[in-house]
Every structure is written in C-alpha cells, then in structure tokens.
C-alpha cells in the first residue's frame, strides 16, 4: 500500500519534470536541418532574419525557420540561393510577396487591405470602452434617485398607515 503511494508520487514527479522539459524545449526547437555555409556574418544574419520573418505556406502558423514542410525547405533554399546571388533582404521579401502576397510576411505592411488587421483591435478596444463608459454613467444616474416633495408626502402617508 505504502509502496504504491510512493510510486505514485515518484511518477508524478517524473511527469512534472518531463512536462517542464517539453515546455522549455518547445521554445527553442527549430527545423533548421540544413547546414549552410555563409560567405560572411552579414549574410548569415540576413538569412536567419528572413527565414524567421517569412511564413511557411503549408503549416501557416510557422515561419520558414520552424517548418519542416517540403515547400518550406525549398523556400529556405531559395532564400539562401538569392542571398548567394547578391540579392538584398528587400529583394527577397519582394520576390516572395509578388508570388504569395502579404500573407507570406509575419509583419504585413500597413496599407488599405491590411488596415483592419492592424487597427481592428484598437477599434474594438475603443468601442468596448465607450460601451462600458456609457453603461457606468447610466448606472450612476440610476443610483441618484430624485424624489420630489409630492412623492415624499405620499411615501410618508403610506408609512404612517402602517
């Protein structure tokens, strides 16, 4: 009996360690399986920045760096090749946007089609704030009940009756 209790506690400890481990690991796991040779540090940092900011179109909540999808692998290779051919970051982002649209960027530019994406939350916040504000004011007004003399007399007479 005691043994099983000990075992249970031991097991839950192990689970806790495992879960904590997974949580820590999951933030640092990435799918950069290819080993790339870079001509200089600038190129390497450009490469890492680009694959972090470009979205994988197959598993859409991952960037190119995190995704193991085949298309993401090919897109990483394309980024690498274009850097090697002397393209700068803007040219590579332009290349991808021309083909896949603003969606391919994790930070889409502010323009008419993405206006709601950028400012929608602010609009919701302001509207919600106005609703709460007007509600609170109404409540306050409802609390301050004004009673005129006639009503007061009536109330007194009703109370006196009892």
């Amino acid at each position, binding site marked *: 009996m005691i043994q099983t209790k000990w075992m249970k506690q031991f097991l839950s400890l192990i689970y806790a360690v495992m879960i904590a481990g997974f949580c820590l690991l999951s933030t640092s796991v990435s799918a950069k399986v290819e080993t790339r040779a870079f001509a200089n540090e600038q190129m390497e940092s450009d490469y890492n920045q680009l694959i972090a900011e470009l979205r994988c179109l*197959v598993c859409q909540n991952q960037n190119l760096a995190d995704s193991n999808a*085949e298309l993401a692998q*090919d897109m990483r290779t394309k980024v690498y090749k274009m850097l090697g051919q002397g393209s700068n970051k803007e040219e590579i982002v332009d290349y991808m946007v021309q*083909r*896949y*649209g603003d969606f391919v960027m994790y930070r889409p530019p502010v323009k008419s089609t993405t206006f709601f994406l950028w400012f929608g939350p602010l609009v919701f916040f302001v509207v919600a704030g106005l609703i709460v504000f007007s509600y609170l004011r109404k409540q306050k007004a409802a609390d301050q009940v004004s009673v005129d003399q006639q009503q007061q007399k009536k109330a007194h007479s009703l109370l006196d009756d009892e």
Partner: protein
Amino acid sequence: MARYGVLIGFFVLMTVFAVVLNRMNEGEYNPKSIPSEFIGKPAPEINVPDLLNGKLVTSADMKGQMWLFNVWGTWCPECWREHKFLLQLQQAGVTIIGLNWRDDKAEAMAMLTRMGNPFAKIGYDPDSSVAMDWGVYGAPETFLVNAEGIILVKHAGGITPAVWEQKFASHFQAKNEAQL
C-alpha cells in the same frame, strides 16, 4: 423598442452566419487559402524539361490558346481523385499543361501509364523552382491562362465538375472551345 432592436440584431447576425456557412460549404472562406497575387497578371515562365521527353516546357509556347496549368504529384491523393476529370477535360478539347511537383520521376510516369495522361506537356519540378514562381503552396492547384498569357482563374484544391462549372466553364463557353 429596445427589445425589437435586440430581436432585429439577432436576425441580422443569424442571416450573416447562414450566408457565411453556406459559402464555406461551397469552398469559399477557406481559412488556409491564400488569395492569388496572379489573377489578371501574366503567367510566370515554366522553363523546365518535360517529364516524359525532356523537351523544355515554356509558357511562351502556349500563347494564342487558352490553357490550364495543373500542379500535381503522385504523393497527393486529391490529385488522383481529380485525374479522371482532367482526362474528361482533355477529351473535351481543353489543353492542360501539367507540373509534376516534388515527385519521383519513375513513380510519376507509372501513375500516368496506369491512369492515363491528361496533359499535353508536363514540366518536371523536383525542387519547387517553378511552383514557387507560380505562388503554389499545395497540390493540386490549377490556373487558367488565356490566349494572351494572362492568368484568369486560380483554384487551390481538386477540380470537380461543380468547381469547373462555377469557376472555369464560363471562360471556355465564351470562346466556344469546350462544352461539358
């Protein structure tokens, strides 16, 4: 009055939900679909060797006729499913240029022998170079390119008679090229 307001609001919301749900069932508003950047723009080049005979497949060669560009692979079950319909389109006189994407050459050729070949030409694209140029992110994907080389339609997903009717057929009927 306020009560009517709530009721009207409820019905308006319900109508919106019904319309959106209905269109979702028709394949619209797919949260994964990406609007194509290419509608109304010139078709990108293909410029890779043909899967079957190694001759260069180009978009430029197709000028002067309406054609479909269909991205497929033997690893893609939806491609097997639409294959029969592509054969029907071919029989109706529609020119289809295929793009065999990220595939094994021998397996791709075996599939065409087994199931028939609906394609006039097939670009072989093992490293996504053509697929990326066309903004492809999944298979199957099908583009409709007109005689001037402009992309008119893009469809992500398998082509069924219903999809054909809804998105493609009108362009062909206008030119009396294919009646299905």
